[in-house]
């Protein structure tokens, strides 16, 4: 269309020039929109590997709880959900679901579901839950584009969108089926940051309001909001110290903090933490500091006397710090302000959890990050990140200071905990995008000026002074064009390697549902172990509806969601004593454990065992954590009793307590008769590669109820007390 319209105008040269210019702008817009559209689609389909490889199913542990609550929300409505008292978990304590979860994810999925129903798309809620994470990942790319545009330019925005769309660090927690809080939280996090930066840049109340709402959404979705409420004040503090205080900052921060705080209080799980908990006190301190700063500014303006102002400044600052310090001290001493939580401590001090809170340290995603997983999750971004930082420092502004601070702090946290790589990913992508975009732009502009050199000879009128200066520059570096081309090729080679790496990682490592296991058979064929679901469906079909199942807490959510049975402990881990009781039962002798199980009304015991298949994350390998957590509350359980010379073993050399504790008996019951591998003795444990030490296991108070086809899940029935004794 454009070309046809332009052809009659060819007669008029001045007109054609103008229309051509308009056309390039349109083209650029078209290009940008289509690139963004492609990235949007790409981000979505890159996350569908798990659906294609396995099936449309919910992954892992926590997502099953989220799915169960979402189902409840869509069936019973919001108020029932809000007031839900769940008597099926944490028996007999129960759990107030409405007050102990972040409802953002469930409400989001339910809204999508209701919208689709309204539009007459009759989908199942499970499909909505499965695809929520990819959908929000796509939305994140759009936010990343705008954010990149805000801190650098549109080019950086586009690159950022493309990078974040396939970055493994983000994909790891947002593949289809990974229906977890982080799925929407990263979107909310980036949106809040973007709107806040925008608000600081413009000083507009409406952007600050938007940022407050973004913060509200983040608070409703994930506990990681604490990162925002600490990073933003830190950023403001840095701006204050570096003398970049402005009215824009004042408006943006005050509006965002006050409104965000009030909105966040509406979430039951968060409640009054913004005014009562130690983690949120920094934001409040900075808020008060801002007022002092503003006041001082006003006094300075009124006084017009530097000497007088200096004394005034000294008095005000000392008294302000004094008052603040006293308030904080009194608040902490009286217990009004709660001290920092263990999780927060373990972020600042990576060794804290290991010594004090075994339940946090026992989770694999809370472990310090290995350097290889940085390489795995970031690939070339790891090298582009410092380059991007260099560019940011070269062109310092409020916005670039923010992204630098976000990048550096989150990267530190990513080093402390594996799962926090996720939080750092957007920052790393954005900063890397700046590096890529700035480099490519510089290189291409070099190429273009080179091409323009012969043209300038014929048409002298167009910007002759600029081009001539570049011509002289070119002449001083004769191989610049070739160098630029070589560098460009290198950049594109790197980016293509990145794309290949991301696709490979996504398909191989991050698309496993972990509830269905896959292995390669002897002939290279794929073998599927669907034992978990087999066991949970067995529970659902074959046990009384009010049966109580005891298992280690990892499987609690899955048992309630898929087995529909009451569990003693689950992944919420809110009550350490209760978990320790289960840990104690698992690590005691059978008759002691029987008393504990009777006191908890346990009917079935479920253990996960990988000795037949070689599945290594089973209960025997988790067993030392049960001992540690149990021993933390009940000192009768001592870790050295289960070790031999500080070594954990299950073969003949294992300690007698280990060989006769409940967990060992339940895992290895009847295992001594089984030949698992050709050429090995009976009872050869493939997960640990040893022959077990106690092959003759007799159960007194329990009986085997069900063992799945690959022995991964074993369920035992607790017998009633003997009739005559």
């Amino acid at each position, binding site marked *: 269309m454009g070309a046809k319209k332009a052809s009659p105008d060819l007669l008029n040269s001045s007109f054609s020039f103008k229309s051509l210019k308009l056309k390039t702008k349109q083209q650029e817009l078209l290009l940008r929109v289509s690139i963004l559209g492609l990235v949007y689609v790409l981000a979505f389909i890159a996350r569908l590997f798990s659906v294609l490889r396995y099936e449309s199913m919910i992954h892992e542990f926590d997502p099953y709880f989220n799915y169960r609550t979402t189902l409840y929300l869509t069936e019973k409505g919001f108020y029932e959900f*809000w007031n839900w008292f769940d*008597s099926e978990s944490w028996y007999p304590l129960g759990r107030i679901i409405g007050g102990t979860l972040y409802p953002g994810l469930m409400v989001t999925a339910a809204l999508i579901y209701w919208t689709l129903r309204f539009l007459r798309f009759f989908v199942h809620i499970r499909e909505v839950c499965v695809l929520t994470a990819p959908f929000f990942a796509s939305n994140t790319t759009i936010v990343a584009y705008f954010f990149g545009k805000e801190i650098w330019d549109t080019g950086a925005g586009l690159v950022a969108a493309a990078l974040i769309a396939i970055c493994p660090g983000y994909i790891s927690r947002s593949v289809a089926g990974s229906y977890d809080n982080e799925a929407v939280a990263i979107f909310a996090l980036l949106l809040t940051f973007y709107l806040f930066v925008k608000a600081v840049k413009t000083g507009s109340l409406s952007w600050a309001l938007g940022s407050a709402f973004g913060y509200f959404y983040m608070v409703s979705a994930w506990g990681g909001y604490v990162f925002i409420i600490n990073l933003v004040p830190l950023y403001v503090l840095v701006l204050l110290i570096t003398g970049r205080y402005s009215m824009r900052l004042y408006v943006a921060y005050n509006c965002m903090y006050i409104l965000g705080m009030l909105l966040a209080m509406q979430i039951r799980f968060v409640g009054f933490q913004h005014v009562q908990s130690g983690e949120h006190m920094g934001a409040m301190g900075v808020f008060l500091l801002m007022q002092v700063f503003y006041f001082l500014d006003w006094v300075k303006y009124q006084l017009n006397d530097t000497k007088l102002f200096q004394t005034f400044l000294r008095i005000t600052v000392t008294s302000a710090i004094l008052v603040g310090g006293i308030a904080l001290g009194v608040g902490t001493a009286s217990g009004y302000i709660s001290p920092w939580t263990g999780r927060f401590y373990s972020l600042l001090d990576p060794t804290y959890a290991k010594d004090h809170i075994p339940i946090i340290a026992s989770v694999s995603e809370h472990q310090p990050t290995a350097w290889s997983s940085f390489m795995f999750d970031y690939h070339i971004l790891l090298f582009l990140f410092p380059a991007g930082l260099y560019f940011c420092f070269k062109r310092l502004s409020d916005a670039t200071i923010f992204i630098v601070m976000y990048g550096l702090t989150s990267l530190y946290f990513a080093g402390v905990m594996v799962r926090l790589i996720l939080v750092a990913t957007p920052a790393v992508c954005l900063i890397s995008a700046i590096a890529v975009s700035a480099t490519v732009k510089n290189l291409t502009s070099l190429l273009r000026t080179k091409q323009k050199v012969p043209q300038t000879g014929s048409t002298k009128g167009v910007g002759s002074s600029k081009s001539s200066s570049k011509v002289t520059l070119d002449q001083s570096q004769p191989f610049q064009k070739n160098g630029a081309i070589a560098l460009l090729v290198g950049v594109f080679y790197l980016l293509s390697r990145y794309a290949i790496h991301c696709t490979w990682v996504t398909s191989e490592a991050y698309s496993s549902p972990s509830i269905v296991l896959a292995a390669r058979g002897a002939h290279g064929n794929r073998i599927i172990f669907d034992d978990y679901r087999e066991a949970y469906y067995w529970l659902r079909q074959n046990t009384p509806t009010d049966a109580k199942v005891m298992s280690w807490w990892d499987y609690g959510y899955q048992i309630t969601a898929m087995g529909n049975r009451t569990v003693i402990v689950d992944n919420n881990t809110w009550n350490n004593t209760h978990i320790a009781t289960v840990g104690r039962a698992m690590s005691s002798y059978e008759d002691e454990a029987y008393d504990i199980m009777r006191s908890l009304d346990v009917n079935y015991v479920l253990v996960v065992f990988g000795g037949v298949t070689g599945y290594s994350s089973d209960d025997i390998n988790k067993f030392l954590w049960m001992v540690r957590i149990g021993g933390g509350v009940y000192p009768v359980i001592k870790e050295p009793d289960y070790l031999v010379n500080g070594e954990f073993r299950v073969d003949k050399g294992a300690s007698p307590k280990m060989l006769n504790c409940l967990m060992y008996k339940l895992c290895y019951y009847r295992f001594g008769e089984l030949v698992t591998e050709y050429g090995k003795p009976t009872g050869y444990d493939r997960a640990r590669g040893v022959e077990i030490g106690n092959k003759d296991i007799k159960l007194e108070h329990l009986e085997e109820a069900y063992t799945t086809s690959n022995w991964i899940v074993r369920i035992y029935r607790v017998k009633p007390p003997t009739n005559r004794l």
Partner: protein
Amino acid sequence: MMNLSRSVALISLFLLPLLTFSFSVDNPTDRRVLVLLDDLSLKSSHSIFFSTLKSRGFDLDFKLAEDSKLALQRYGQYLYDGLIIFAPSTERFGGSLDSKSIAEFVDSGRDLILSADTSASDLIRGIALECGVDFDEDSSAMVIDHSSFDGDHTLIAADDLVKSHAILGKTKIEAPVLFRGVAHSLNPTNNLVLKVLSASPSAYSANPSSKLSSPPQLTGSAISLVSVMQARNNARVVISGSLQLFSDRLLRSSVQKAGSPNKYEKSGNEQFVTELSKWVFHERGHLKAGSLVHHRVGETDEPAIYRIKDDLEFSVEILEWSGKSWEPYVADDMQVQFYMMSPYVLKTLSTDKKGLFHTSFKVPDVYGVFQFKVEYEKLGYTTLSLSKQIPVRPYRHNEYERFIPTAYPYYGACFTTMAGFFVFSFVYLYHK
């Protein structure tokens, strides 16, 4: 067609009383009893005991212990409701019977009277051991008492009876019970078994025909002469160390305890064995509970969930079997627990004398999954262990007070600030 169905109905009508004779929850008294003897002459030497049972409506089936056709069940159905083993010397039962199948018989809720004697076989000792009773290991040992005896020092005149109306009836047994046989002791870890007839402190267990070379292992009141065991499923077992205790000779004999001026024309044996057999065959001391009923005060339907601080009413109907019909059970020691890992509420139930026990209380200010628990363990009575699960939830978001009186100053402060801000903005913006 009509005829056929009518005749089927008729036949079933005739069969009905026969069917109801068998052991059931509604009619707990045993009806069909298998009596195992090692000698058929016992039938006549113990005829008084057997005829009292027959007169109370029991259907006795006498079999020799070695009978090769012995069977307790056929096609998975038990043929008998009770079992009397008067075969102390039997080494092996005939047919399919062994100590394991007798233990299973008890575990299915059926009753057993087991009598040993001096030189009791290992089989009998084994069955007793299953029920928490250890007979003296010395097979020739007998209970000897030099102070409480009647004539012969091995004929014990025991009067140390358990004090329980449920087990031994309301009428006191005046005359001592004559006993000649082997001593036993109770397994200390088993709290289901108890002594009904104990030996005096001066008794001991030894071989009367030989001199004592070492101190006797069982002495004094640790010796039990007759014990009972009530299993968790309320099956009842009587274990006696003497077969003669049940014999016509001792039932009819007169008794005079050595050194005591009181002479009784008749020993206490007949009353003792009759009352004990009434207890063991569930003619007495058998309780039945209806379902646990609970609801909020002022309502009648049972809610699915309670809220904290709800007022609720709780009731349970408990009946006692009198041997013929169900009568209301009257007691003042029935308690209910509102239980979650430990009892939060423990209340004694009041009764309306018609079998209904009831109380009302307030749900504690704790949420969780609670249970109503009635655990009734009274000596001689069947154990009642009832529980019903009910969750207790906290307040809903709209069940709190909307306005708290103490907070009125804050509401006032809030609204005056809002008004003040409005006025201030108005003045600031338009006052120039």
